[in-house]
């Protein structure tokens, strides 16, 4: 239940608890998280946003302790936030402000001098794909533009870690893909740790290397996506142009269960640790697959399984 912690820890919590009245939003959370792209998964009301807010000191911690970037949350809040970016779930801009002014202002609030703030603001607006719209008032922006603006304000001061709360909410598929690609590049290309909170498994599957599953204020799973997928080996989705029936018949001969999915992919449960038997079969049939997706639903299955265990224990 723990990802690789040989790297210097970026988040460390001990018995982190947050209580709202009778409700325990976080229940003694112990975590050690190394830098990377981290997916924070959980159903609505699981405690994902509360976890982020406690780390950012937007919510006071009821008990326990938390360290972010090696600094104690609660005593070094201002210093921590200088190195941290945050995109909240809801809309939160300053009305009446023009886009580039807003991002410049956010950079200045993090301590950048005006000239540098203005230059960085334009660079980040370029980076998130905002064109001339940056000279318009934010009130007039579409949801997609506001999401980009939120991302720009979160990274304008060059943070070491960025918390993104439901970054693709309200976006169309194209907008979602663009935002996810940008977020993915932050860690992959520029080395900025990204913590993405989402209930959309597909988004997290696409961009995250580490997975933390939270439910009822408790951490149920913390592992790398690779390890989670390794646990769920034995199934694959094969994309072939034609000859679906021939492949399914061959699978049946091997005593593998196969199913033609509505999207045209064939799901094969080969029950092997490796994809080699499946590849050999395709080779024998002389079928050139367009794509093979190993363990296609590993994350979803892990997620559902973790939730079921959590429900059973309570």
């Amino acid at each position: 239940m723990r990802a690789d912690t040989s790297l210097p820890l970026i988040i460390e919590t001990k018995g982190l608890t947050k209580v709202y009245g009778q409700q325990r939003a976080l229940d003694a959370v112990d975590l050690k998280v190394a830098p990377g792209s981290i997916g924070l998964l959980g159903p609505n009301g699981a405690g994902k946003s509360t976890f982020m807010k406690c780390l950012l000191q937007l919510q006071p911690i009821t008990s326990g302790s938390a360290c972010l970037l090696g600094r104690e949350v609660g005593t070094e809040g201002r210093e921590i936030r200088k190195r941290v970016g945050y995109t909240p779930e809801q809309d939160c801009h300053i009305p009446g402000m023009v886009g580039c002014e807003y991002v410049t202002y956010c950079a200045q609030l993090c301590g950048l001098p005006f000239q540098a703030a203005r230059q960085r603001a334009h660079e980040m607006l370029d980076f998130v794909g905002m064109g001339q719209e940056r000279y318009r008032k934010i009130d007039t922006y579409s949801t997609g533009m506001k999401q980009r603006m939120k991302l720009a304000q979160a990274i304008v001061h060059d943070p070491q870690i960025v918390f993104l709360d439901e970054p693709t909410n309200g976006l169309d598929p194209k907008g979602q893909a663009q935002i996810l690609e940008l977020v993915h590049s932050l860690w992959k290309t520029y080395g900025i740790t990204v913590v993405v909170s989402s209930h959309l498994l597909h988004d997290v599957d696409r961009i995250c290397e580490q997975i933390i599953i939270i439910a009822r204020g408790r951490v149920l799973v913390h592992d790398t996506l690779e390890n989670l997928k390794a646990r769920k080996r034995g199934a694959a989705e094969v994309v072939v142009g034609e000859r679906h029936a021939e492949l399914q018949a061959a699978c049946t001969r091997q005593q593998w269960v196969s199913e033609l999915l509505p999207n045209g992919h064939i799901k094969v449960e080969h029950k092997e640790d490796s994809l080699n038997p499946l590849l050999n079969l395709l080779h024998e049939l002389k079928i050139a697959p367009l794509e093979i997706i190993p363990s296609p639903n590993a994350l979803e299955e892990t997620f559902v399984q973790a939730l079921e265990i959590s429900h059973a224990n309570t």
Partner: protein
Amino acid sequence: MPIHDIRYQHWEGAHVGVWGRRLVIARNGLMAVLQTKGVWQLVGMCWVTGLAMSAVLFMVGQLLVADSVVVQWAGNLNPQLQMFVRLLTTWLEQHPEISVRTTQNILFHYYSMYLMPVSIFALGILVPLLITRDLASNAIIIYSSKAISRGDYLFGKFCSAFALLGITWLGPVCGAWFVGNLVAPDWRFFWHSRAAIGHSLVFVVSGMIVLSVLAMGMSSVSTKEKSTPAFWYMWWIFGGVITPIAAHTQPWLRHLSFNYDLNQIAMAIFRPADDIKIAQDNIPLLGDMLRNIKPETMAALGTPAFKGAIVALAVMGLLSTLIIRRRVKPE
């Protein structure tokens, strides 16, 4: 295709200190209100009255010079009036420490009081832009996620209000004093009028602090941008209405008006009754005229409800602080 590099660039410059960040918030608040329709007209009005005040000081200064422009004008109007003015100027010339001090103290008392309602009105325009807007738009979350504390945020907002009052109130008062004494017949006017500017500074700065805190409290009351200025103006008008009524029924009710409380503090600082007494006792002719002031008016001027005003303003400030503390949170 972009003609420049649009990849992410790391930044390795030096950060500005926390005071710089607080000033950024203050500057942003001030700029927001100065972009609002009608504010520049108000600011202009305050500074024009400052010029008018300088002109009045020039005229008063001319009274202290034999054969000044004023004496010549008086002569053109009426020879008897010229005699009166000549007599007065002769005496005033001999006692500048009384004449300059007393005159300017009275003038600056009334000028400071004149600018106060204009400043309260201007502050009403700033009220929705101070905290209300940030609460309504959830911008408070953005502020809370940046490298500033809640105290830094509130200090920045306080400075916005303070700076606006500085432009509409303190600036014109100081400007009028400086220009008015610059055109006076003698450089010693600066020295003799030290009490007037000293009293003005103490009163105006105290008033600015009190009004800024009250405006911040009012701005935190609601998340509706139309409600908070309405509450602010209603409180002000309510105070104006209740003061004369309460004087004959429950005098303590007058302290519900911050305007009345500040008025009492002004009287305690400027002590106009003392100036009138000095004038009555020392200045020929004019002193005789001032003896006609009613005793009850003199009593009211001489015994301001200073303690009551201080307590009332302290309670209002405390309530504002509690409201701010309760309302200004990220969630």
